[in-house]
């Protein structure tokens, strides 16, 4: 019987082969240019920032388009493409384009382009529609001057056109802006700091942006969407990774540079990586909300809605969603804590925990007859799966008869648009999330719209809130605006137009080779530097 001896020569040969293989298989170490590879929160599929309110499309638009004016970290409108003057009667806004503005195809940006872009945007955006309702004329006085004349004053005009929430008014060439607002554009030419590389674009896979060499930044330091947009890298590649763990492994391995959102339960993996920083780049974060259907029992009854508010608890919902108090905040301000309109009037029922006994008593007082509450639970969106489960149990604890129906998010979005009764394909309650800038103002926050069939899903017919919104729109200064917003806050908490379930934040992660990322609710890639590669 032969004795077993280690095959030294064979082992060495194998080791050499493996080493050679390893060298062969090693990823390419460097790029000729500086490239930031980023994994964003979602894949980019729709490229028209006027047709959709999707965050990823807005983020894409900030890369390639510029805006007339932009909000800074104090929520104040600042000049971006243009400076402005307002006439004494507050009826005429004159915008003057700054020098050096050029589209990516080489054409100069003119006032005609601005007018066409604003007109297309104004047909889709609810704030824009309100401005155009009182617009007497919007004209290009010359190549650099836009004159916007109103029939009656609209004090928040600059705030609306400077917003960074859904549908900011991005400026495109007039020939592209001539596209119907219900059709998607097919040419992506902006005057922003990056050029969209259409050849490298793969929908759902990756989007590439190249530095726009002719972009002239403003002189001011960057502050949210305002200030100088100085680009220090040659390319930015957004790559889609459907699996968060894959993205985290790739970041730790140096294959990508940045992840816009990491799942909190996976953070310990990155905490162990010496070359990676996990941080909160978005200073505001998100809210999670529940929306009742006002058309049918039981939520057509104000006392029943109030009972639901008492039954639910922000703490319970947020703790289940996020796991760690490090990533959520109990907050009763419907316009978001930390925003200029923050006010917690009337929020005690939802911020102080669950009150099942009080809720039960109120339900009896309301004469609730056990009508089932059809509650929709999306099962395929991580950030929306848990709220319905916690809410259903809390409502049951208070005596509601809850019929929780599991479905995918697409089924939720189709069903929430159905105005039929809950037992015929309709619904009573659903949940969703918003970025704080999207709910930070009564003109932006669609859940405080009370125009019945024209309101957001749930369709509250609420003339009182419409009057309060009108007061807000006409408020002459910040103090008056804040007072008007406070009344809306009190009304929403009393009438339960929606259930504000608190705030949460998603951490971001970056390799330490990239730095100088500015704090902003929108992930932007100007100002960033990349060292050592």
């Amino acid at each position, binding site marked *: 019987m032969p004795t077993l001896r280690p095959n030294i020569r064979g082992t060495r040969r194998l080791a050499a082969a493996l080493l050679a293989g390893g060298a062969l298989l090693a990823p390419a170490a460097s790029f000729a240019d500086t490239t930031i590879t980023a994994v964003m929160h979602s894949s980019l599929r729709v490229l028209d920032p006027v047709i959709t309110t999707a965050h990823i499309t807005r983020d894409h638009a900030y890369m390639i388009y510029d805006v007339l004016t932009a909000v800074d970290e104090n929520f104040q409108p600042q000049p971006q493409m243009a400076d402005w003057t307002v006439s004494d009667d507050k009826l005429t806004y004159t915008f003057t384009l700054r020098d050096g503005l050029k589209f990516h195809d080489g054409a100069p940006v003119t006032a005609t382009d601005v007018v066409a872009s604003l007109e297309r945007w104004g047909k889709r955006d609810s704030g824009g529609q309100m401005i155009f309702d009182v617009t007497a004329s919007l004209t290009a006085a010359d190549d650099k001057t836009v004159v916007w004349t109103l029939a009656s004053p609209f004090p928040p005009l600059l705030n609306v056109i400077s917003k960074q929430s859904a549908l900011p008014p991005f400026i495109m060439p007039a020939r592209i802006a001539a596209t119907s607002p219900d059709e998607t554009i097919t040419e992506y030419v902006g005057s922003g700091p990056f050029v969209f590389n259409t050849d490298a674009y793969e929908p759902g896979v990756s989007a590439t942006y190249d530095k726009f060499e002719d972009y002239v930044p403003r002189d001011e330091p960057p502050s949210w969407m305002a200030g100088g947009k100085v680009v220090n890298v040659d390319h930015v590649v957004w790559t889609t990774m*459907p699996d968060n763990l894959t993205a985290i492994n*790739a970041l730790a391995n140096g*294959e990508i540079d940045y992840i816009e959102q990491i799942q909190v339960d996976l953070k310990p993996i990155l905490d162990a990586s010496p070359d990676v920083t996990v941080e909160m780049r978005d200073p505001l974060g998100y809210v999670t909300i529940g929306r009742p259907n006002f058309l049918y029992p039981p939520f057509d009854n104000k006392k029943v809605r109030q009972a639901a508010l008492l039954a639910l608890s922000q703490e319970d919902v947020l703790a289940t969603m996020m796991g760690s108090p490090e990533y959520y905040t109990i907050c009763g301000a419907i316009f978001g804590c930390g925003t200029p309109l923050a006010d917690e009037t009337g929020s005690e029922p939802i911020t102080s925990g669950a009150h099942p006994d009080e809720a039960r008593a109120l339900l009896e007082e309301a004469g609730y007859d056990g009508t089932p509450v059809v509650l929709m639970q999306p099962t*395929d969106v991580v950030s929306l799966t848990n709220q319905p489960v916690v809410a259903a149990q809390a409502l049951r604890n208070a005596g509601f008869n809850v019929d929780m129906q599991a479905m995918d998010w*697409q089924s939720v979005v189709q069903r929430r648009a159905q105005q039929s009764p809950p037992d015929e394909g309709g619904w009573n309650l659903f949940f969703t999330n918003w970025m704080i800038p999207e709910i930070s103002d009564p003109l932006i926050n669609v859940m405080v719209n009370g125009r019945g069939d024209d309101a957001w899903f749930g369709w509250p017919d609420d003339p009182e809130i419409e009057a309060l919104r009108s007061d807000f729109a006409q408020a002459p200064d910040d103090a008056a605006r804040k007072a008007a917003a406070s009344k809306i806050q009190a009304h929403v908490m009393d009438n339960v137009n929606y259930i504000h379930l608190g705030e949460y934040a998603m951490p971001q992660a970056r390799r330490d080779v990239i730095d100088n990322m500015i704090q902003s609710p929108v992930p932007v890639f100007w100002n960033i530097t990349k060292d050592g590669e």
Partner: protein
Amino acid sequence: MLGYILRRVLATIPVMIIVAIFVFLLLRLTPGDPAAILAGDAATPAQLERIRDRLGLNDPLYVQFLTWAGQTLRGDFGTSLISNTPVSGMIASRLGPTINIAMMTIVISVLLAVPMGVIAAWRHRSWVDFLVMSFSVLGFSVPVFVIGYILIHIFAIDLRWVPVQGYKPLSDGLGPFLARAILPSLTLATIYVALIARMTRASMLEVLGEDYIRTARAKGVRENVVLFRHALRNAAVPILTIIGTGFALLISGVVVTESVFNIPGIGRLTVDAILARDYPVIQAMILLTAGIYVFVNLLVDISYSIFDPRIRY
């Protein structure tokens, strides 16, 4: 044989028509709204309605079907409702990664599994047999994403031999291609090695009991010749079937592996399209998958006659 192939190809036409009608109706009966994906969460019902009108989603079903069928017959799969790009281009760019990974998986699986199955059958009820069968049970039982993460941890994170994720086409060079294709292929191979090894073993056990094997052995033919030339060739038909259907399954169903390794293949494309209710993409993908199954089955049938001369058409 040529007549047989022609008959089989013609027989695919009614199959594809039935698949097309079935898929079209099924998709329209499923709740979901591509307009909502397009417009975003803050869109009002009126905005959604205008987008649905523009996309033709409010047209009667038969109008939508005839429009789509007419386009498809002209070889045009239409345009994605969500990204507004041609569906054929989207599929073409995603097909390469999936086919390459599938082919590598099948090659690795066959090279490992067939000898394993043959040896397990040859050494029936020995420890070798026990080992092969144990591996098969393990291969079936452990989810692919678990195997994928284990391989990533060892080879990409600890040893740093290969990247964690991504895909490079062969045109970028053999090294970059292999570096990114090897781990997903190995991950998927664990299932198919188990499957093919079991089938090979069962088929070989049946054949090894036949008279002609005993005769060959009695005549003093060497054991490896008995096993690989006589027995394996006659045991090949069920093995080929499992390899063929395995390949078709790989093409259509590697979505988990594509997600774990971030490979832009058609599995991911299909699931994304389903989640977004992007009807033209889903319809094209299902037609394509049905076509691949039909084509692979045809190839398997043809190959039967090569491996088993008793089969005649």
